[in-house]
C-alpha cells in the first residue's frame, strides 16, 4: 500500500508540478494567472489519445502534434483572454476571462470528444511492473522540463530576456526588449509544457474533458504554496501535494480527501501568504 501511495503520489505530483510550471511561465511574462493551465493538461491527454489511438499516427508524431496544439492554445490564450485585461490587473478580470476561455474549450471538448473518459494509448511496448511507464513518464517529463527551463533561463539570450521581463517588464521594455513578442513566446512555451503534463500523465488521468478544472485547481496549489514564479517551489509543493492527496485518498476517501487538501491549502496560505518556499518577493525600494 505504501509503495502504491508513493509511486502514484509522486507521479501525480509531477503532473501537478508541471501544470504549476505552466502557470508560472505565463505569470512571469504577464503577471496574470491564466486558469487555462489545467485545460492545457486536459488537451494534452485528449489530443494524444485522438492522434495516436483514434487516428493511428505514430507515437512520436502524435506527441509533437499534441505539444504544438498546446503551444497554439497558449498563444490564443494570450491574444484572447490576457492581452485585453492587462491594463487593469488590479481588478482580477483575468480570472474571468481566462476561466471563460477554459470553459469554452472544455465544453467544446465535451461536445466533440464526449463526456466519458476514454483510455490513453500505451506509448511503449514494455511489460507492466511496479515502476510502470504511467508512473515514470510524468517523472521523466517533469525532470526534462526543469532541466530544460534551467538551461534556457541560464544559458540562452532569450532566457535572459524572459527573466528580465519577469523581473521588471517596464524596465525591460525601456531596454528595448520586445515585451509583447516575448510574452507570446512564453505563453507558447507554457502551452507546450501544459500539454506535455497531460500527455505524460495520460495513462493515469485518461483522456477526459473533466480533467481541465481538476488540473486547474490542483495545479494552482503548487504555485501558491511554492511561491509565485518559483519553479523549484512548484516542484517541491507539487510532489508534496501528490503524496498528501494519495495518502488522504487511502485514509479517508474521495470527497473528504479533496476537503482535506483544500483545508490544508487555505491554512497554509493564511499562515504563509508568500508561500512555503521562502521570503517571497523582496520589497522594491
Amino acid at each position: 500500500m505504501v509503495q502504491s501511495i508513493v509511486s502514484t503520489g509522486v507521479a501525480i505530483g509531477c503532473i501537478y508540478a508541471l501544470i504549476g510550471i505552466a502557470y508560472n511561465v505565463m505569470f512571469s511574462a504577464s503577471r496574470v494567472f491564466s486558469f487555462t493551465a489545467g485545460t492545457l493538461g486536459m488537451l494534452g491527454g485528449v489530443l494524444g489519445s485522438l492522434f495516436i489511438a483514434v487516428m493511428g499516427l505514430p507515437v512520436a508524431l502524435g506527441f509533437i502534434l499534441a505539444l504544438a496544439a498546446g503551444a497554439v492554445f497558449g498563444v490564443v490564450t494570450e491574444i484572447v483572454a490576457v492581452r485585453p485585461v492587462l491594463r487593469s490587473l488590479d481588478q482580477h478580470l483575468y480570472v474571468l476571462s481566462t476561466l471563460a476561455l477554459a470553459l469554452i474549450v472544455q465544453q467544446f471538448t465535451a461536445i466533440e470528444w464526449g463526456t466519458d473518459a476514454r483510455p490513453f494509448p500505451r506509448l511503449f511496448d514494455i511489460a507492466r511492473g511496479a515502476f510502470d511507464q504511467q508512473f515514470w513518464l510524468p517523472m521523466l517529463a517533469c525532470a526534462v522540463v526543469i532541466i530544460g527551463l534551467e538551461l534556457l533561463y541560464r544559458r540562452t539570450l532569450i532566457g535572459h530576456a524572459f527573466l528580465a521581463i519577469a523581473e521588471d517588464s517596464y524596465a525591460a521594455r525601456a531596454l528595448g526588449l520586445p515585451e509583447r513578442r516575448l510574452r507570446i513566446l512564453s505563453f507558447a512555451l507554457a502551452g507546450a509544457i501544459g500539454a506535455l503534463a497531460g500527455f505524460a500523465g495520460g495513462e493515469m488521468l485518461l483522456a477526459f474533458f473533466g480533467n481541465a478544472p481538476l488540473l486547474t485547481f490542483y495545479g494552482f496549489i503548487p504555485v501558491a504554496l511554492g511561491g509565485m514564479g518559483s519553479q523549484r517551489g512548484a516542484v517541491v509543493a507539487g510532489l508534496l501535494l501528490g503524496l498528501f492527496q494519495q495518502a488522504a485518498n487511502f485514509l479517508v476517501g474521495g470527497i473528504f480527501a479533496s476537503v482535506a487538501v483544500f483545508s490544508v491549502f487555505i491554512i497554509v496560505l493564511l499562515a504563509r501568504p508568500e508561500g512555503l518556499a521562502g521570503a517571497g518577493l523582496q520589497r522594491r525600494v
Partner: protein
Amino acid sequence: MKRVRSRLVMLIAIALVAVAPAIFGSFTITLMNYIGIYAMAALGLVLMTGIAGLTSFGQAAFVGIGAYATAWYTVAHGGSPWIGLLLALALTALVATILGVATLRLGGHFLPLSTIAWGIAIYFLFGNTDALGRYSGLSGIPPIAIGPLSFEGTIAVYFFIWAVLGIVMLLCWNLLDSRQGRAIRCLRGGTALVESLAIDSFRIRLAVFVLAALLAGLSGWFYAHIQRYVGPIQFDIDAGIELLLMALVGGAGQIAGAVVGSAIVTLAKNVLQDVLPAITSYSGQFEAVVFGVVFIILLQKARGGVVPIIKKYLPRPEQNVLPIKASPLPRRQRTSAPGQAVLAIEGATKRFGALAAVNKVSFEVKAREVLGLIGPNGAGKSTLLNLITGVLKPNTGTIVFQGADITKLPPRRIAAAGVARTFQHVKLRPNMTLLDNVLLGIYARTRAGFLAGALRLDRAEESAARAEALHQLRRVGLGDRYGDLAGNLPLGQQRLLEVARALAADPTLLVLDEPAAGLRRLEKQTLSDLLRDLRTQGMTIILVEHDMEFVMNLVDRIVVMDFGVKLAEGLPAAIRADGRVQEAYLGGVA
C-alpha cells in the same frame, strides 16, 4: 430640471414593473419572478465585486444556504416560512462571517480562488447531508403566506418579489451615499489610503461580504418558496459564475446593473434553451460555450457593462445636494502648549536589506510649528514619513506622538490619534466626487453605522459632515467644483484636494509629502497662505518639499537628510548657510 428628468426615468421604470402583469402572460411573469430573485443575489455581487472589488465565485453557495435553511425548517419541521426567512438570513450571515474572517485577509489572487474552494465545499455539503435529502434535495416546500393571504399565484408573488427588490435597492443606494458606503467605495484601489483615513479596511470588507451574503440569503428564501424544491445542483459553482456574469453584464458598480444583468442573462438563457436543441443535440454544453464567448466579448468590448452605456443617454442625476444649514462637527481638543513636542522621533532606523533608508534619525516637532524636511532624492524623507504614519515599522527606535508611543501602532490607529497625511504619489478615488473624497477624511469624526446609513437616520450628521467638507474644499480653492469627479482634476489641484481631505480629519499633526509639486505659482501662494493660517490656528505641520523658495518662506525650522542620516537641523537662515547642506545639494562644488 435634471433632477426632474432623472426622477421621471425612475418613475417610468417603476410603472413598467407595475403594469407588466396586465400586459404579459403568466410565462413572462414567471420569468420576471426569477429575474427579480436573481437580481437580489446579483445586487450583493454588485456591492462586493463591482464596488468593493472583492471578486467572489461563491455567491450561489449563499443563495443555497438561505434556500436550504428555510426548506429544511418548513419541510422537516412544518414551520412558518417567515421564521424560515429569519433562519435563512441568520445562517447566511453566520457562515459568511466565519468564511470572511478566514479568507478576507488573503491578498490579491487568492481571495477569488478561495471563493471557488468554499463554493465547491458547500455544494458537496448539501449533496452529502442526509437531513437535506442528499443529491435529490428537498421538495414539498410550502408557498409564502400572510395569514389567509397566500402568495401562491404567479402574479401575487410577482408584486411581492419586485416590491422587496425595490426596497433593498433603495436601501443599498442610501447606504452607498452614507459614511460607511463611502468607506466601501474607497476599498477599491489599495489599502494605503483606506488605512490612512482611520478606516478599518478588514472590518469594512467583512461587512460588505456579509451584506452580499444576506442579499443572497434573501434571494435563496424566495427561490425555495417559489420553486418549492431545492437541490444541490442549483447552487453549484456554475451558478456562482452565472451570478457574477449577471453583475458584470449589467455593470458592476451600478445598483441598477443587478436588475439589467439578471434580466439579460435570464432571458438569453431562456432563448438559448429554445434555440439550441434545434441546432445541436448537446444543448447543455453548447450553452456554456455561448456564455463563455459572450463573457470574453463583454470583457473586451464593454467592460463597464450595459448600464453605463444606457446612462450616457440619460441625464446625470444631481449629486451631493448641499446642506443649507448644519450644526458644526465637534473639533479635536489640542492639548499641547506651544513649544511642547507633539512628535518625538528617537533613533529611528529602517533597513531594506543592506540599505539603511533611515539611519538613527532623531528630532522633535513642536506644537504649532511648521517643520520642513528636505534633502536630495533618495535621502529617506518619504520613508521617514511612512515610519511616522505607521505604513512602515522601524527596525529600531521609537516614535512618540503627544506622549504616547505609536511606534508599533497600525496606520489607522495613528490616523485616529490625530495624524493626517497626503501622499507623494496622489492617492484619490478618481471616480468619486471632490466632496466625497473630502468626506472620506471626515470618516473618523463621524459615527453613523451601516443600518443608519441605509435607513437615512444619519442625515443630521451627514449634513454637518458635508458642510465641513465643503468648508475645507473652499479653503484650498476648490469650493465651486465640489460635484466634479476627482479624476478630472489636473495633478496640482489633486494635491490640493488631498490637503483638503487631510484637513477634514481635523488633525493635530498634518504630514504633507511634496504638497507643492506640480502647483502653479499662484496655487503655491494660496497653499502657503493656508498653511500659515493653519499654524496660527494651532495645527502642527511637517512637510517634505523640494521647492526651496516655498520651504524657506514658510517653515519655522528645517531638518536636512542625506543618505538616511540627519545632516543638519535648524532655522532656515542657518540651514541656508550650512556648508554640509550645500555640499549635499551641490556635490561639494560650493
